[in-house]
């Protein structure tokens, strides 16, 4: 029983971290990017590449993965968001982020290969550790640290407050002299770094695999929708709920109905409480 709970929380932590990344991107741009899951995939793949492929020490691999993630976040902003937001059409960013996500997934497939490859052991630990194994606790720890870090960032730092300001009213922020474009770029860079960190932490769980992106985008989104858009605590709760649900359903029912059950959860929440468990009802000025 405990192993089901722990493995559920671990995968849930990865979903929660993805939801946090969604939140950061959304706060400054009001865009939910399809590339969110792919950032974590890049973190895992490049972490494995730097440490196992190039033989670097794990701290260098970690930094390298974070840099790659940040760069991809920045690229998402430049390519997919900046020009698109300038136009008034609401839906174009969905298309541009979908396009970018497809491109990055296929390029990684061509370069890295289509089979999952091993992710190195980060901390020396015996493999018979059972539920205390680092592959479970690294992602869980990382998700909690990330959520705490974000809260501190928003409350204590100037840039964090700028993010909050932008998410409440971008025009007013601009009127007050906030360089919204640069702040948005910064938020995407931070989101990219966070996502890569999450992917790196979860690497031993997921292996370095190119196809993680799309499923993580979907699952991270379910975690976000369940927890409530814009709430970091909600992201943690939503991720944990989804991860545990997946783990228990596959324990009792088997793997054939995974998607059905996860989506069932999503649809239920969206029908009953569309803004999520901890989200705020948004009243839009018309």
């Amino acid at each position, binding site marked *: 029983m405990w192993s089901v709970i722990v*493995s559920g929380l*671990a995968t849930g932590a990865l979903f929660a971290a993805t939801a946090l990344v969604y939140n950061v991107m959304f706060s400054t741009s009001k865009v939910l990017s399809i590339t969110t899951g792919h950032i974590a995939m890049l973190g895992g793949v490049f972490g494995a590449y730097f440490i196992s492929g190039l033989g670097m020490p794990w701290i260098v691999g970690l930094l390298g993965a974070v840099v790659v993630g940040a760069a991809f976040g920045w690229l998402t902003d430049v390519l997919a968001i900046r020009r698109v937001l300038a136009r008034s059409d609401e839906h174009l960013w969905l298309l541009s982020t979908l396009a970018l996500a497809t491109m990055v997934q296929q390029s990684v497939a061509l370069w890295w290969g*289509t*089979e999952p490859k091993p992710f190195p052991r980060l901390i020396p630990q015996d*493999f*018979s550790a*059972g539920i205390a194994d680092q592959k479970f606790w690294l992602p869980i720890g990382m998700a909690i640290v990330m959520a705490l870090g974000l809260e501190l960032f928003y409350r204590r730092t100037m840039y964090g407050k700028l993010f909050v300001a932008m998410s409440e009213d971008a025009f007013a922020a601009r009127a007050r002299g906030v360089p919204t474009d640069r702040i948005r770029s910064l938020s995407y860079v931070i989101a990219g770094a966070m996502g890569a960190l999450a992917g790196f932490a979860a690497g031993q*769980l997921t292996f370095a695999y190119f196809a993680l992106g799309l*499923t993580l985008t979907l699952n991270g989104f379910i975690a976000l929708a369940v927890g409530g858009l814009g709430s970091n605590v909600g992201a943690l709760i939503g991720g944990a709920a989804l991860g545990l649900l997946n783990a228990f359903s596959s324990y009792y029912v088997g*793997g054939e109905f995974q998607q059905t059950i996860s989506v069932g959860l999503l649809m239920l929440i969206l029908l009953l409480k569309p803004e999520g468990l901890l989200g705020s009802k948004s009243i839009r000025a018309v």
Partner: protein
Amino acid sequence: MKLQAPARVAGVLVGATLTLFGGSALAQPIKIGWLSSLTGPLSSPALAENEGVKLAVEEINAAGGILGRQIELLTRDTAGDPTKAVNFAQQLAFSDKVDFVIGPVNSGEGLATTPVVARAGIPNLVIGSIDQLTDPKKYPRAFRVINTNTQWISSANDYALKTLKRTKVAVIGDTTGYGTSSAKTAQELLEKAGVKPVYSVLIDPNKTDLSDELTKAKEAGADVIMPWSAATGLLARLLNARGDMGWDVLVVGHPALMASQTRALLNKPVYWEKTFAAGYVSTTYDESGKLPPRTQELVDKMRPRLGGKELDILFWWVAMGYDCVKIIEHAVTKAGSTDPAAVQKVLENTSRYDGIYATYSWSPEQRNGFPDSNMAMNVANTFKDGSFKLAPR
């Protein structure tokens, strides 16, 4: 005397016509269509098989071709997409008008293309393992070169039940198309042998940890685990969970257990012990550590083309690709032409044609050419240079 002149003229005329006719046929190359998923899933076997096919084509062409005709190889990358595979099959059959089709590699694509190629009446060498790919009545010109799924599963079942004398089997499949159908066949064959599995489950190939499933299998009292999945991630996690739990149950199953990608994902190399999989006589080392001579010959020929170092792929893929082209050579040479009906007749009366991968036999009622006697059980962690040691009897 008088007859000589007209006879000679007639002789010259006949000779000229024959040379013209025969000459134009001599100039025409033999077109072989090769449907291969060189990118996308299952690209590793496809790339290896491609090397074997290319080598055979080059060798035959260098020696003058088949019946004096050069082979023209038309390769089409299906990328694992059945719609593309059907499109390419149509293109090869009707646009390029090939004489033979090899492939596709992927069973899912094969199920869609075999009827198409059959409708065009073109001989098809099948290299997918799902049993439904051959049928003497529906696809009279489709001849299978690879073993069938049933042969893989039966070899493993026989080894587990008869040699290792296990009775409590846990069957593990994955949720992909291949996994679900293989697991189902495995269960049916076990039940036919009088054994009901104590635990059977289908697992998502990307599930991150399998210790729960293994714990359940252990609680059910399983004494052998038989996974039927081609997903190396899943198989590696299975072996990892077994090792992490410290459970020394035997694992007997799909050849992908022996693949280098699976080994790479193991937590510790020692987790690869006590793992057996279905393999082949042609890629098994004997007691003195030697491969069958023809296999060794091909390995030596292929090595420089594959990087010159120790081989990291399963060599039977290469051997099978090579054999496909050689079988075509055999069929055309014996039939005297590429006429599909003649080729069909030759192939369906082929008994014990010695390839490198296997010794093939087909018959008018039987389109699966791989004999049971060429199956062998291998020990996973004896992988060296593309082949394995024989599992202890």
